[in-house]
């Protein structure tokens, strides 16, 4: 399948490059709809891979790459369940997300996240599964999960730990603050900075360069340098589920869902 249009995203293959466009209102929140489309993409990757050199992941939404997990969906779904069912349901969701993100992480082609605006929580974790992050200078990155009494659950900490220094991760995680693209580049998170509105163009130029390399060599190089931290990823799911079982988390989710604060991602 060279192109696909789903409910939350679409992709198109052209001359060795896939463009995966996230387009789910309001800000590409990652819930079941996005997950199912990502799973479709991962399934299609198997047949696309032999003819693919690069994949660009970007967003069509005005406000950014992705605001993260769909907390409204999570809260409303969890509120209908018993505590035991809630934990079991969230574990199942996380297992599926991890499977999709691990497949993107290990893709035999080069993956480029073209990021603008908000890139928070689960959206940030999707960008981290990619090989290269190109960021618009207005992009902001954050892990605000601690405000809910949770840790990031889509593989964020293990992937950041793989890529960056621990001190920066602690700053992001333990304060919940967002950092701009310039700061993100200075710590090595962002590979290339783009002027406002230019991230996709720069990602396309990068993809055009990547296409020149031999596919077998590219896949071998990537496999050598970018190992998937499976053990930490498993542990992350366990910790997330342990924390999710606490009543305080449902209280925090309810507060977030009902909040009209200008900065609801802060506690």
């Amino acid at each position, binding site marked *: 399948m060279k192109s696909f249009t789903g409910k939350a995203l679409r992709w198109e293959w052209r001359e060795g490059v896939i463009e995966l466009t996230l387009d789910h209102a309001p800000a590409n929140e990652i819930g079941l709809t996005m997950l199912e489309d990502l799973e479709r993409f991962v399934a299609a990757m198997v047949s696309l891979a032999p003819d693919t050199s690069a994949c660009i992941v970007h967003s069509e939404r005005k*406000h950014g790459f992705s605001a993260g997990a769909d907390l409204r969906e999570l809260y409303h779904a969890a509120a209908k369940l018993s505590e035991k069912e809630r934990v079991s349901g969230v574990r199942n969701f996380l297992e599926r997300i991890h499977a999709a993100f691990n497949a993107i992480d290990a893709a035999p082609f080069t993956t480029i996240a073209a990021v603008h605006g908000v890139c928070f929580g689960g959206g940030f974790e999707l960008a981290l599964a990619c090989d290269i992050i190109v960021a618009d200078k207005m992009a902001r990155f954050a892990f605000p999960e601690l405000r809910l009494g949770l840790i990031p659950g889509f593989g964020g900490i293990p992937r950041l730990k793989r890529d960056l220094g621990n001190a920066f991760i602690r700053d992001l995680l333990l304060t*919940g*603050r*967002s*950092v701009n693209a310039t700061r993100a580049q200075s710590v090595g998170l962002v590979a290339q900075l783009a002027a406002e509105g230019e991230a996709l163009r720069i990602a396309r130029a990068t993809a055009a360069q990547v296409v020149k390399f031999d596919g077998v060599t590219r896949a071998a190089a990537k496999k050598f340098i970018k190992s998937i931290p499976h053990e930490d990823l498993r542990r992350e799911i366990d910790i997330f589920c342990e924390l999710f079982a606490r009543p305080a988390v449902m209280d925090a989710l309810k507060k977030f869902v009902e909040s009209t604060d*200008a*900065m609801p991602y802060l506690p």
Partner: protein
Amino acid sequence: MRTLEQTTQEVLDLASKHFNVPAGSLAPEDDFFKKLGIDSLQTLEMLSRLENHFGIELPDYEVQGVSDFRTLASRIQSRL
């Protein structure tokens, strides 16, 4: 080094330019959420614009609860 008055004026000019509010219609004591009509995602946009303009980092928690331009400018001033 900028004075607080200069910083405040630059914040007002930047807000006016990027949120399509007529120049001169914003005052230091104005509530920027009401005056600019911005939501949480636009607040982040404003934060990025301020950081890029002044070449600083302004952690979200330092502007949480701040709603007027003058206090916002003073938070910026302390990081210049």
